[in-house]
């Protein structure tokens, strides 16, 4: 496999780190996990248990929380190493994390948490001893997050929380939730919001899975009925929730480098698939019209790689505000979605089958299943975390300075 990386590791420091981690992965990812589609042909619960176990092993070997301080259980590395880590994970087809909120909750704790919170929560988070979920969205507060209605009232030394959250990934199997609720209802909508760290075993919490269109269990909804949360479990101060959320932009940038590495792997799978699949009696890879479509996503992916390289350079230089966050989000969603469409064009009538049609080439089943999953999954990528429409609005208004309606 050939992946042009997004991190310039000509510097010795990066290169040594890369090689060491690569060797560890080589020795510690079971061989049977490697092929494309492995995780897509397994049930959700089994997959999470396997991953969780593997992540503990990885943590114990020193390969987790790369850029988190040692004192809180991290490796104490640099953002550059963190990016290399993400790339190597993708290169090795390492399992996705069982604890996907690490890049959001980890930095929130680091940046805004009190000392006891950092000591208490970060290490078990990184080691996936405790799984976390994020309770932001509500049925009537999706794109318009600031209009959320879940309410937290202070009663003595604890808050009482009532409301409903949705799109709370993996909530039913999580140990802790990172929840945004309204503590003050006067003033502007986005003021008066507070972040809470909530033990999912607290009475009054009812979490139920909502199946994804891919068939996977992932999202959930969470009902909160008089849930008592100790006042000390506020993160970043009462009514400071919006500030905390907006303080995470730099972190999101690093996370996107990791996301790019996975997309890059997906493109490799797509190109490999193009060589296997047949359309009209010849390899899809030889069809000039399909080559154009494939060429276009390769162009867009190369551009995203260059964008990631620049982002990494900016991070390394300690750059501040990222005005191109909505551009990144928008381009990622569109490009990944385009990749999905190219997959169906390459696969033709077999795109949706769980096994390749033998009359359409000798197609690896795992490859087909993984690309199929990616295709469906990408429909969500122009919606979650702010729709493509919202991103274009933000670009138009904040970057180009166009007037609001």
């Amino acid at each position, binding site marked *: 496999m050939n992946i042009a990386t997004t991190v310039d590791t000509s510097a010795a420091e990066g290169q040594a780190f890369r090689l060491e981690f690569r060797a560890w992965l080589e020795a510690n990812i079971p061989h049977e996990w490697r092929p494309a589609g492995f995780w897509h042909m397994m049930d959700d619960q089994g997959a999470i248990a396997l991953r969780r176990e593997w992540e503990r092993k990885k943590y114990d070997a020193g390969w987790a929380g790369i850029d988190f301080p040692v004192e809180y259980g991290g490796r104490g590395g640099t953002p550059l190493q963190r990016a290399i880590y993400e790339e190597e994970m993708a290169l090795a087809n390492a399992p996705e994390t069982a604890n996907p909120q690490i890049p959001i909750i980890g930095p929130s704790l680091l940046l805004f948490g009190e000392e006891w919170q950092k000591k208490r929560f970060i290490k078990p988070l990184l080691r996936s001893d405790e799984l976390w979920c994020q309770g932001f*969205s509500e049925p*009537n507060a*999706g*794109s*318009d997050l600031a*209009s959320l209605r879940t309410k937290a009232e202070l009663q003595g030394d604890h808050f009482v929380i009532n409301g409903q959250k*949705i*799109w709370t990934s993996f909530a039913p199997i999580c140990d802790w939730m990172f929840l945004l609720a309204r503590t003050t209802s006067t003033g502007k909508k986005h003021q008066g919001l507070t972040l809470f760290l909530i033990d999912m075993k607290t009475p009054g919490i009812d979490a139920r899975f*909502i*199946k*994804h*269109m891919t*068939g996977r269990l992932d*999202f959930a909804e969470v009902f909160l009925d008089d849930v008592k949360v100790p006042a000390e479990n506020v993160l970043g101060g009462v009514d400071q929730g919006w500030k905390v959320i907006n303080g995470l932009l730099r972190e999101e940038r690093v996370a996107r480098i990791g996301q790019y590495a996975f997309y890059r792997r997906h493109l490799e799978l797509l190109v490999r698939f193009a060589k296997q699949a*047949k*359309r*009209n*009696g010849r390899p899809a890879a030889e069809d000039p*019209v399909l080559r154009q479509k494939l060429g276009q996503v390769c162009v867009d992916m190369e551009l995203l790689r260059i964008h990631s390289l620049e982002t990494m350079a900016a991070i390394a230089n300690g750059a501040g505000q990222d005005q191109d966050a909505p551009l990144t989000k928008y381009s990622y969603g569109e490009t990944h979605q385009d990749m999905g469409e190219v997959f*169906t*064009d390459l696969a*033709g*009538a*077999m*795109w*949706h*089958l*769980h*096994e390749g*049609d*033998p*009359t*359409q080439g000798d197609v690896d089943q795992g490859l087909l299943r993984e690309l*199929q999953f990616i295709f*469906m999954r990408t*429909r*969500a990528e*122009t*919606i*979650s975390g702010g*729709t*493509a*429409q919202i991103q*274009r*609005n933000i670009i138009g208004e904040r970057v180009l300075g166009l007037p609001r309606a």
Partner: protein
Amino acid sequence: MTAANAEERVLAEDTARRWLEQHCDLKAVLAVAEDANGAGHPAQVWRAAADMGWLGTLIPEKYGGLGLSLADAVTVLRALGSGVMPGPYLATMLAAEAIRLGGTAAQQARLLPDIAAGRVVATVAGARLDELDITAGSGGKLSGACGAVAYASLAQILVVPVRNGAATNLWLVDAKGPGVTVAPCQSVDGTWRVGFVTLHGAPGERLEGDPDAWWRFIRHGAVLTAADQLGLAGRALDITVDYVKLREQFGRPVGANQGVKHPLAEVYVAITMARKGLFHAADALERRERDAFMSASVAKAKCNDAARDATAAMIQFHGAIGFTWPHPAHLFFKRAKRQEYEFGDSTWHRERVADHWLKETA
């Protein structure tokens, strides 16, 4: 199409839609998709398809059908498509159409009455139009891989395209007979069922009425499939428009934003043009007009695009709820994307339309 005709069709489609909504609504369809190992064959839908004459729309009256036109079949299938209806009715109608177009009077008389009455399930191989390599040996024994075939496990009659030098002939095979193996395969689209069929010297019977029927059949197949797609597309738009009128974000209905309104307007335009193209193609094929093959390609290409765009918009503009399993949007989207590659994807059809124009223009 006469005005009287048009009114009858509106009525027939309306009746079909109401019946389906009452007896197999979107929740029921979701349950069929959920039960991936089930037959994907709701009895009430099949019964209705037989009793209301849908299966026999195109079958001559003398063979138990209604003897109606392709445009009538399009109307019926659009209604079924608008309900994302599961079941082998389309596969069966396609097989019947192959027999009608290619079979002798005797073959038709023997097979079509059972099909019209819903007594047998039939299906067709080769819908993806990539060349298959099925050959006829001595004594009409057929061999070769048929690839993925709709409702292969259920079907009793199988129609297959068989190579005959440069030509392709349509043959019949007893799908439950000797020399036929079926390996069921799951599909992401839970509103149908599919299996890989292989023939190992299976006894075949050639459709002898019109040996060139394959070329007509694939155009009729494209139009009938496109009807289902058009049904998906129209319903997807209706549901989405209703949703964005009510769903509020930032203090106003989501549909008041041009970022939502304009793409939905484009979907409306696409569906409207697709509908016009499809009914025109149905009439042109019916009348065997000179340009009918091109018209069928125009219709299928446009229905492919309209159905994909409408169902993708359905997911996008429902926001997060649109990509959950309990919401029906994914049923529409997956089926539209599946059918996009049956009886010719847009690339296949655009190539044929371009070819036609290049040949016809001096």
